[in-house]
């Protein structure tokens, strides 16, 4: 019995129907064309896939419904959503995790070189907020979203640990 998914491939949505014909052989319908595809696991998240005699070797990195499928040719971003499940999750869009206050944390131990914003500042998405030196390199840390700086927890010269909250943006 085929399973239907709503799939997003590099940002474009398609309906896709996938049916297991027998172990490791799948029929996939995309835009009314059917293809038989042979999928062979070759590691915990690696697959050898044959489609119309073409051979692909994939590592799949999964994040919920979204998957990054990496091969010799490059990387494809695939989202697969089972429509029966989708209704339950309505409204849970891609950016839900960025709503509300966000703590910008240190990704590695380092030293704060410069603080580019102060409390109360409005910042744009991707605007630089801090400069941190780690491993002999200066890294500009950018705001993960547009918002207002509600708290600056660090000052230039201060050393920070990995995971330490540096700034809170609302």
């Amino acid at each position, binding site marked *: 019995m085929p399973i239907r998914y709503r799939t997003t*491939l590099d940002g474009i949505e398609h309906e896709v129907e996938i049916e297991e014909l027998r172990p490791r052989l799948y029929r996939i319908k995309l835009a009314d064309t059917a*293809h038989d595809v042979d999928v062979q696991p070759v590691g915990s998240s690696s697959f050898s896939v044959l*489609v119309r005699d073409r051979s692909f070797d994939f590592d799949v990195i999964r994040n919920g419904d979204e998957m990054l*499928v990496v091969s*010799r040719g490059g990387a494809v971003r695939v989202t697969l959503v089972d429509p029966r499940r989708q209704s339950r999750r309505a409204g849970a869009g891609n950016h839900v995790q960025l709503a509300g206050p*966000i703590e910008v*944390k240190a990704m590695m131990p380092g030293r704060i070189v410069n603080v580019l914003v102060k409390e109360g500042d409005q910042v744009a998405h*991707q605007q630089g907020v801090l400069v941190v030196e780690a491993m002999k390199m200066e890294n*500009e840390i*950018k705001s993960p979203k547009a918002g207002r700086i509600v708290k600056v927890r660090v000052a230039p010269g201060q050393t920070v640990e990995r995971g330490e909250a540096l700034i809170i943006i609302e």
Partner: protein
Amino acid sequence: MTRMFKRILIANRGEIAVRVIRACREMGIESVAVFSDADRASLHVREADFAVHVGPAPAAESYLKTERIIDAALRTGAEAIHPGYGFFSENANFARAVKDAGLTFIGPPASAVERMGDKVEARKLMAAAGVPVVPGSPGTLESEEEVRAVANRIGYPIMLKAAAGGGGKGMRLVENDHDLTALVRSVASEAKSSFGDGRFYVEKFVPGPRHIEVQVFADNFGNTVHLFERECSLQRRHQKVIEESPSPFVTAAMRQAMGEVAVKAARAVDYVGAGTVEFLADENRNFYFLEMNTRIQVEHPVTELVTGIDLVKLQIAVAAGQPLPFTQAELQQRGWALECRVYAEDPTAGFSPAPGKIQTMRLPDGPGIRIDAGVYEGAEVPIFYDPMICKLIAWGRDRDEAIARMRRALDEFSISGDLVTNLDFHRWVMRQPLFLKGEFDTGFIGQHYSGADGRVEQDPARLAAILAAAFLVSRDGTQARPPVASSAPTTQTSAWKTLGRIDSLRR
């Protein structure tokens, strides 16, 4: 025949420690590793014959503790210490302390390290020895007026450089007289705060420069040779990322001239061991002494592949008192070699470090491919040190074959886990028409790399990708994972990075 060492301590970590351990093993010498708290499970500890703990994770408290390193050597009966690169490799005090403890420092005499370590003194010394240096101030300057006088003599644009600077730090480009005041103040203050040494000097700015270096080697019997050049112009953040030998820019005449000058530079400081004389070359193939690195370089394998000489084993042999086993005339370049430094860093986020755990790793091999790795599958790239994963080196009969092999090897290379790598960046470089033509300078990456991948998938690949995804979903269930917020990204992370990190969380 001189007596060879029985046991050597390697005062380093990562790939260079493994590289030295391998050299020791091939020479029948036992190796002693040292490790910090962060490196107990690191490859160099696993591969060595002995391993001694020397302190907590920060290098200043472990790998850079002179007395602990020397204690470890004495305790394990090591007779010599190899410093690798970085850490103690260009530290004259360490070299002296090693000697004082009755051990051999595998590197040049402390005096040579010292004389080349001070950039202003080295400039003076080289100019006196007849080595071309970039026109500029003869020594350090103190005031804006002194700088202006030099600038008026050599012409704008000029570079202001901290005497103790390096690695792209403590440098300012001054385009015209108008900017001079502010920039002199700025470089002086940075020099003071970053290096504790406020001295600076002036050099004429060389536009579109190539960074080309010459490998030299000297023994204790007055023999000094060069092993030809390495092209190191491909840099990001003022750090080399792809090197090759020969250089596609260097002609036979230039090669000979650079080699002779490099040997002259080494002789001027009574050099012994492996060293590198770095030059800036302008578009007219004029070349100027930049600095001398008094140690083995990260990029030494490209020289090994074209000359056939094992530089690390030769360092050990020379330190044990053996003469060079070849003359200049016996050395020749054969074929072409390229090195890609594979880092845990995110090229789409300004090449910022992105270390973490390696879940799966498939290394390329086959004809013409060499890998010098410091990690293994399942290992962690620690956050405390240089986030290099390995060096991927390709040899070919000519540059085209070396590039084709590198491209092939990069395509075979797969790595996943809680880290981001610059493999896609290397794949991009190996397909750039200007790179393929050998037409690039130190500004190449900044000018041409946007972080975009640029490769387009064929249709069957898209289908196959959907299927691989569907297979994973049907096998592992359709449960959505926790949202991303709990590990809010602090820099502009690539999808790779985000997904990689999240993926690792659920394992």
